[in-house]
Every structure is written in C-alpha cells, then in structure tokens.
C-alpha cells in the first residue's frame, strides 16, 4: 500500500493562517479548496468573503475573492452571478454576518432561488469582536455580552438558520455538518460538494451550515471546544441533510 502524501490543494495559497489555535475556519477553508479542485472549477470560482474572522479568506484561497459589507455577501453574490451565470459563486459567512445583520439578504437570496452556494459557519459567537452573543448562542451560554448566560426572556432563542431557510421554495439544498473529527469533516465535505454540484447543475440556492469551534470566543481549550461542539451544540442544531430537491 502506498502511503498517502499530504498535498496542499491548488485552491489554497501556500501561506500560514492567522486563525487562533483550535479555530474551525482553517479546516473549512481547506475542504472548500479540496472540493473546488476536485470539481475542476478553480478558474471560474468567485467567492464573497464576510465581515468577521473570515474576512481575510482572500489571503488563503487561490481563486478570485471579493469582500462585502457586513451581512451583504448574498446580495453581492447575486450581483456577480446575474452577470456571470456560468461562474461558480459562493459566499462564506459567519453567524453574525448571516444570521443577525444579514437576515434580510440571506432570506431573499434563498427565496429567489439564486443559483449560488452559501457556506454558513456557526460557532455561536462574534469571534472577531471578542466574543459577543450571536443569534445562534445557546440558551445559558456565557459570552462577552451575556456574562450571566443567554436568557430567553431577554435574548430569545438560538436561531435555526438551516431549518428556516429550508422552508423556502427557492432553497434546493440545505445541510448541516460539523468539523470536529475526520468522519464529520468527510461528511461535511460531501455536503459542500453536493451544494456546489447543485449550483453547477443550475438547480438554485444551496446552503451548508457548519458547526465550528471558536475556542478563544467561548473561552475553552481547543479540545474542550471540540467536545462542546460535538456534544452540546449538535443537540440544538442537529446534523444531516435538511433538504435536497
């Protein structure tokens, strides 16, 4: 048996990441790059980076990437895809970007069956601004702005974006994965691949939510964060394909 050689995907730049130890973004960037390579679409991919920790995504991926104002990547992606319908356009958004300030854009873009792909990274906190409560923060979870834990009476409930989007007729493929272990990474990568294929086949809007680790934001060690995502977060946000039509 030949040993498997570790190779960097072509769609990933040969540079080091600025992400914190134990952060999930590096893994997610890589599996997206692998999918883009495997589908042979690097030369026609245009990505839209969010405002948040992944704002520097254009320094890591080796395909065309633009920034977008906070929450607006789906509108920016719409403006790209409408004039270049044969390119592969995806947005990469966090829970603050997509599920708080950008709720209007994500819902209407999905509802228009816009033929783009959305990678939604849910790590339950605003990482870049030091760990405030996000729409997806769990009940009771302590953050910078919920020092006594998220209270339903004051802060409402964790927002289940994938379930919300899946009821829209324009959403064709919606799945939720995580990147806590090799098995989950492999499954999530297959979701991302299906989402891109949905777009390649001109079927319409696809979204993959990825439960991810922000050890610095949730004040845990990388290993504790992995376990917390796997054991606690998945209870509120169950994994699997939610819609595939």
């Amino acid at each position, binding site marked *: 048996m030949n040993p498997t050689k570790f190779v960097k995907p072509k769609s990933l730049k040969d540079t080091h990441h600025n992400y914190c130890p134990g952060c999930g973004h590096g893994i997610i960037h890589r599996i997206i790059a692998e999918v883009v390579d495997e589908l042979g679409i690097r*030369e*026609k991919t245009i990505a839209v980076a969010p405002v948040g920790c992944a704002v520097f995504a*254009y320094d890591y991926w080796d395909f*065309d990437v*633009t*920034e977008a*104002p906070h929450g*607006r990547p789906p509108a*920016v992606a719409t403006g790209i895809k409408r004039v270049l319908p044969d*390119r592969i356009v995806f947005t990469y958004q966090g829970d603050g970007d997509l599920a708080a300030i950008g709720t209007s854009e994500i819902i209407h873009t999905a509802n228009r069956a816009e033929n783009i792909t959305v990678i939604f990274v849910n790590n339950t906190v605003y990482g870049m601004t030091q760990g405030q409560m996000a729409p997806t923060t769990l009940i009771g979870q302590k953050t910078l702005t919920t020092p006594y834990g998220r209270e339903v009476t004051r802060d409402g409930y964790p927002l289940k974006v994938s379930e919300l989007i899946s009821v829209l007729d324009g959403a064709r493929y919606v799945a939720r994965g995580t990147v806590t272990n090799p098995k989950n990474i492999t499954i999530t990568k297959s979701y991302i691949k299906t989402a891109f294929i949905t777009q390649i086949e001109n079927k319409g809007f696809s979204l993959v939510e990825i439960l991810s680790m922000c050890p610095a934001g949730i004040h845990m060690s990388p290993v504790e964060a992995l376990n917390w995502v796997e054991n606690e977060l998945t209870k509120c946000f169950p994994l699997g394909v939610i819609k595939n039509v």
Partner: protein
Amino acid sequence: MKKVLQGNIALCEGAIEGGLDAYYAYPITPQNEISAYFAEVLPKLNKVFLQAESEIAAINMVFGTAVTGKRAMTSSSSPGISLMQEGISYLCGCELPCLIVNVMRGGPGLGNISGSQQDYFQSTRGGGHGDYHTIVLAPFSVKEIYEFAKSSFILAEKYRIPVLIIYDGYLGQMMEIFDTESNEGKLDITVDQPIDKNWILDGAKDRHSRKIRSLLMNEGELEKHNWNLKEKYEKIKKNEVRAKFYETDDAEICLVAYGIAARAALEAIYKLREKNIKAGLIRPQTLWPFPYNEIANLAKKVKKFLVVEMNLGQMVEDVKLAVNGIADVYFYGRPGGSLVSSKEIIDYIVSII
C-alpha cells in the same frame, strides 16, 4: 433624433446607450418610472433587471456586478440613497465604477414626494463613512439627464469611482423635447489610454487569482491607500470640472444654481436684463468636483453672487469658499420640496441690488 421624454425615461435610454449591463433597485417615489422602464426593456436586451428586497441589497448587488467589470446601476430617491451610503463607502474604498442616481425628494425623514435639492451635502461630501468622494453630476434638462447617463460609465471606469447623478423630482417627472444627436449637454470624456480592467473578478483563468477589498490592516497600508485615493481625486478635480456660463461677461450680479433651480434662475436673468439689470448665471454641471476656480475668477469682477437652491443653503457654502470673501454672497432658497420661481428670484434680486 427628436424625442419627447420624461426625465426619468431619458435617464434609462441614456444608461442603455452608455452600455448598462445590470440594474438593481427598490421602489420609491418619485422615480418609479425608471424601474418600470427597465423591467420592460432590459430583459429584451438580454440585460439584467432585478428588483431588490431593499436599497441596501440593491447597492450591494451593484457592488457585486461592479466587481466583475460589468456596468451596474441603481436609482432611488433621498431616503433610499441614505440607506445605500454604507455600500457607496465600500464601492469607493474598493474603487469600483458604477452609476447611482438620486431623484431627490423633500425631507428630512419621510418628507414628501415632490422635488428638492436637499442632498447636496450628502452627495458632495461622500455621504457615508470615510475620506472619499464620488463624482456628482447635476443635469438641468431632460437632454442633460440623457447625456450624463450615457457618459457616466466611461467616466466611472476612467477613475474607478462611482458616479452619482442627482436631480430633483421635478426634472425626473417633467417631459421635454430634445434631440439625441445634438451636441447640447454632451459630456466629452477624454480617455487617453485603454481603460485598465486588470482588476476585475471573473475567475482566475490564465492569470493569478485576484482579490477586491477595502480592509487594509497592515501598518501604513490604509494611509497609503487613502493617499492614492487623494491623488485620484486631485486628478478628477483637474480634469472633470464642468460648468456653464450665461451672460456672466458684464454681470453685476451672478446667480449660481444647478438642476431645476438653474432653469428658474435662467428665466430670471433674462427677465432682469429686460429691466436693465445685468444678471448672469453660472451653472455647475459637476457638483463634485465643484467649479471653485471658475467662480473665484468671476469674483474678481462680479461683486455680488446669489446662490439659488431648493434647500436651506448647502451649495452656498462652496460658493463662499470659492469667492473667499472678495465678493458678497447672498442666498435664496426654499426647502421641503418647494419649487423656486423666477418671480421670487427677481423680487429678491431687486431687494438686494
């Protein structure tokens, strides 16, 4: 070809002539004719028309299309343009060309739906966050609306900057006869070298991957970017100032007005000349860059200036800067979507002369 068109429709025809690829907008009065026209016409031309869910989405769709190097446009009226300011700041930070049209109505707040010139400050001072400018064109006739729209994309691409066309709801709603072939109102934009498109995102085929961003976190990087923008703005100030002069050679009093107010002012100066009052008019066609030098030169011989606006006095500040204390600057204006009439201007001039 002679045409009788509403200002808002002339805008659409001009933009299409200018090579418009995609239009995105959200409904708001008094400019709904624009989206109705494009909804009907653009699909037949294989161009993009999309009604956005908000002005915020519309300006970001414009951003997306601009990123690809295609020609994108949005239009709105004052409250909607306020909502777009964040996007306009990003467009300027990322140096993306596009066309934004503000058919101004009365304010503040919801205000009313009749024409106004209340957004002069917002338009000429950037409007959103940051040290930036957009080119601001102010047509005063249906023909100029047509011509300015037609030239706006070349102008925007020449400098990689958003171009704003602003006019009051009166000009947008009025219909007027004009000749598409005549030179009147044409903006001659000189382009010395082929416009650089080596920044667009259309897929990294046979080239390195590209990024478009305004986030510059490394030490000194953002300052350098701002100095580069400044250099560009200076170039625009040098090359693109446009103003029209009427009867200024022997004028004792020089009016300064743009848009529909300039038409009332024009009527006023000719009526005043019938009464042997030597009045003239300078009409800025570009509000940014502003014709400071042209007005400063006039101030060497004209001792009185009267700025006429449909607001409480905004452009008057630029005129005062230009005149720099060497002549008297008066102001006559009406806010809140009220039109200035030539009779009011004449009465006011008679009272100060």
